């Protein structure tokens, strides 16, 4: 098995198909993930626009979908959530940037299992196609959480037939793809680090991808099991999640003599919808950290680089991320306070949830400590990294409120909860993706992105997203329920309509702002200023190699690492940054 000369595991591919379609190169696969997420995010964003428009102009007929019925609105909710959570927030930061930069940042020529990596992407791609196919047969109504019994009984509503089967199939495929990706990331991190790249010299982005992969490895297996049981309930007649006595026949009043078991009632009994909630949220809560932790890594990397200062408390950052990951597996019950769980369980879940505030606060203070008294360079990626911290704090502060059962129970089914998770898990994670895009674009495409357009994009997005999601907290406290498609039908919601109208206008402006980003992205690929190998004067290994990196990342040699990841402004050093593979020097005192 062992050969003595250093050759790349697979030769540089020839021909279009092997080079760009079924490529084994982690960099090509990373870009494939990124562009898949880019397509997905525009689909998901379009759906959110349709929802916001319908809330304000409920009688308006929309293109393609025509008149919007309540079930059409719920279909938008389901598809928006599923596309955004799985195919954007999970796909872009981990599959996209993680794939591209994890091997380069640790000095490896590729992932540990390149074939598995390719399979992982193409499985994700098929999962996306299957999900989009659900649009054409009537998409399901059950939300991205797929709560039973709505999701478990095909006759429970329009779209819950074939559409829901496609939805579950897509999720199951996505689980398989994520497992392949996760074990590849972990093995690569453990096994492929260049000489001198000890775990505690890895950039925090690598730590973030590594921890995210562990979360994915342990969480997606449980969702896969839940998906199998759900498919069996739907198609084999089992009743894991379906209790007895359900009526989906459309009868709204109790008929004299009761429902007829043979014709009216669903032929299941003894199952428990709560079982689905347990299985789903055991996956679902780690999933929100799968979305946000890579953003934390990117923010740490960028704040240090653009403040020209070492990251404040490197070890504390690593341990905080580990703590967030571990705690993330023991708090799933806080999504289920409404389910009538024992107050003792709720208390335990509540305490654990609030404990997550501690490592989160450690990270926040360390970020602030990093930029404090730094010589900050406000390039676009830095703006988005600061925006990430801002949104992480704003969205995170409502977390301890929702973590308490007494507050969660009145707030849970209101707009307060979407306000909370959109700020912290949605927009903050998206800011992480934007920051990473502006930061690594020069390395990936050899050109700089336009700074002016980048700044416009940043300010429109920051002000716009705050304008959309901050008022949701207020609406929630005022009692506006989630998932209602029409506010006009409920008298007490009428005073809230002007605020909703403002949010819709803000959404339209914000979405328009995203086309600035799209234009900047493609325009800069062709026309952007040529990028130097290390335009940001950063220290990590991806900036030591050519732009864009060669097939084996370092052109036949393997870097030797002598320094930590964030040695900026080192006294006595010739430049204000020491790259990780610079020669070792005697310590300066």
């Amino acid at each position: 098995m062992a050969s003595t000369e250093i050759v790349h595991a697979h030769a540089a591919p020839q021909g279009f198909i092997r080079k760009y379609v079924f490529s084994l190169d982690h960099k090509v696969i990373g870009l494939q993930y990124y562009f898949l997420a880019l397509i997905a995010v525009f689909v998901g964003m379009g759906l959110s626009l349709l929802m916001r428009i319908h809330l304000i102009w409920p009688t308006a007929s929309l293109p393609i979908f025509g008149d919007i019925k309540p079930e059409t609105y719920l279909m938008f909710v389901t598809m928006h959530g599923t596309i955004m959570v799985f195919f954007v927030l999970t796909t872009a930061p981990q599959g996209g940037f993680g794939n591209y930069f994890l091997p380069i940042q640790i000095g490896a020529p590729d992932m540990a299992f390149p074939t598995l990596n390719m399979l992982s992407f193409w499985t994700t791609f098929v999962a996306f196609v299957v999900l989009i196919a659900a649009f054409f047969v009537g998409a399901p109504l059950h939300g991205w959480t797929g709560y039973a019994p709505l999701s478990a009984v095909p006759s429970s509503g329009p779209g819950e037939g074939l559409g829901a089967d496609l939805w579950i199939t897509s999720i199951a495929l996505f689980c398989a793809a994520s497992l392949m990706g996760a074990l590849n990331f972990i093995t690569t991190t453990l096994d492929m680090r260049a000489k001198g790249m000890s775990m505690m010299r890895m950039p925090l982005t690598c730590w973030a991808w590594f921890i995210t992969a562990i979360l994915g490895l342990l969480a997606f297996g449980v969702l896969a099991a839940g998906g199998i049981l759900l498919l069996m309930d739907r198609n084999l007649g089992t009743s894991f999640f379906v209790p007895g006595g359900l009526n989906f026949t459309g009868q709204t009043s109790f008929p004299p003599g009761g429902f007829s078991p043979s014709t009216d009632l669903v032929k299941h009994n003894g199952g428990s919808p709560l079982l689905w909630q347990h299985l789903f949220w055991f996956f679902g809560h780690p999933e929100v950290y799968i979305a946000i932790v890579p953003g934390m890594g990117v923010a740490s990397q960028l704040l240090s680089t653009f403040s020209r200062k070492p990251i404040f408390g490197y070890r504390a950052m690593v341990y905080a991320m580990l703590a967030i990951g571990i705690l993330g597996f023991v708090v799933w019950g806080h999504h289920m306070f409404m389910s009538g769980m024992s107050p003792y369980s709720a208390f335990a879940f509540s305490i654990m949830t609030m404990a997550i505030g501690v490592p989160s606060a450690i990270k926040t203070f360390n970020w602030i400590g990093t930029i404090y008294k730094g010589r900050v360079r406000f390039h676009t990626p830095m703006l988005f990294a600061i925006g990430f911290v801002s949104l992480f704090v704003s969205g995170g502060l409502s977390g301890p409120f929702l973590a308490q059962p007494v507050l969660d129970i009145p707030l849970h089914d209101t707009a307060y909860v979407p306000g909370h998770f959109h700020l912290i898990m949605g927009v903050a994670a998206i800011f992480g993706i934007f920051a990473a895009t502006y930061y690594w674009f020069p390395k990936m495409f050899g050109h700089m992105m336009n700074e002016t357009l980048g700044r416009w994009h940043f300010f429109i997005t920051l002000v716009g997203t705050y304008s959309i999601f901050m008022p949701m907290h207020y609406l929630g406290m005022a009692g506006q329920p989630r998932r209602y498609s029409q506010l006009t039908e409920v008298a007490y919601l009428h005073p809230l309509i002007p605020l909703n109208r403002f949010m819709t206008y803000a959404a339209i402006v914000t979405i328009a702002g995203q086309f600035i980003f799209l234009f900047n992205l493609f325009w800069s690929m062709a026309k952007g200023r040529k990028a130097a190998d290390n335009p940001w004067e950063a220290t990590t290994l991806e900036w030591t190699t050519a732009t864009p990196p060669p097939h084996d990342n370092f052109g036949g040699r393997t870097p030797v690492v002598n320094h930590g990841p964030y040695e900026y402004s080192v006294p006595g050093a010739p430049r204000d940054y020491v790259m990780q593979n610079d020669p070792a020097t005697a310590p300066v005192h």
Partner: protein
Amino acid sequence: MADAAVHHDIAGVYEPSLFGTYSKKIGMWLFLASDSLTFGALLFAYSYGRVSNPSWPTPFGKESIINATIMTACLLSSSLTMVLGVLAAHRGDKIRTRNWLFATMFFGAAFVLLHGMEWSKLIHEGMTPFTNPWAPSVPQFGGTFFTLTGMHMLHVTIGVIYLGVVALRKKFLPVLLLLWLIGWLATPASNVFHLGVHVLLIGAVVAAMVLFLHPKDYDSHDVEVSGLYWHFVDLVWMFIFPLVYLMSTRV
């Protein structure tokens, strides 16, 4: 699977790997970690259904328990032969490795066969995924039984195919196709395994893709990694046997 991991065999170019081991082994351990969570979730679903249904049936009589005990003995023996196979592989003894792998596959196949016969018997008695003759008000009994044991049986079947590929490479494909044909012809059309045996055909297609797209010699590392998988599948049964069978004994 490709071998970028070959690199870290070269001293001084890479950091020493975790526990001095190789990528494929870490990858398999990680897969097993994930798979144990999947089985954990299924066992959780089973336990949840069981504790919330006070009238859970206990239909397994002497015959079933003896059968399940023989199945358990098969799997335990197969773990022993697997260990001997791995030891032989590390010694470089190709003939013995192959023979021990054959023994392991034999016990695995015997397990699947015995289990299949038991399934057929239970189905004949009227058990389905949504009902059972012993406690009609507890449909979860059939559902959890068939899900758990079916998922495990699938894992054992995949394991036998995996070992066959490691032991015989391309020569295993005709054997597998023959097994599929025999299984298909030997089961009556009304039997659930008349359809289920097509898993072997799917396995043969996947094995052929792996063997032809990525031809290579399997070394002692591959034997060890396949052994990890095999022991894990045995271990899962050591949870299923007491939880599903021994706790549902008719006394």
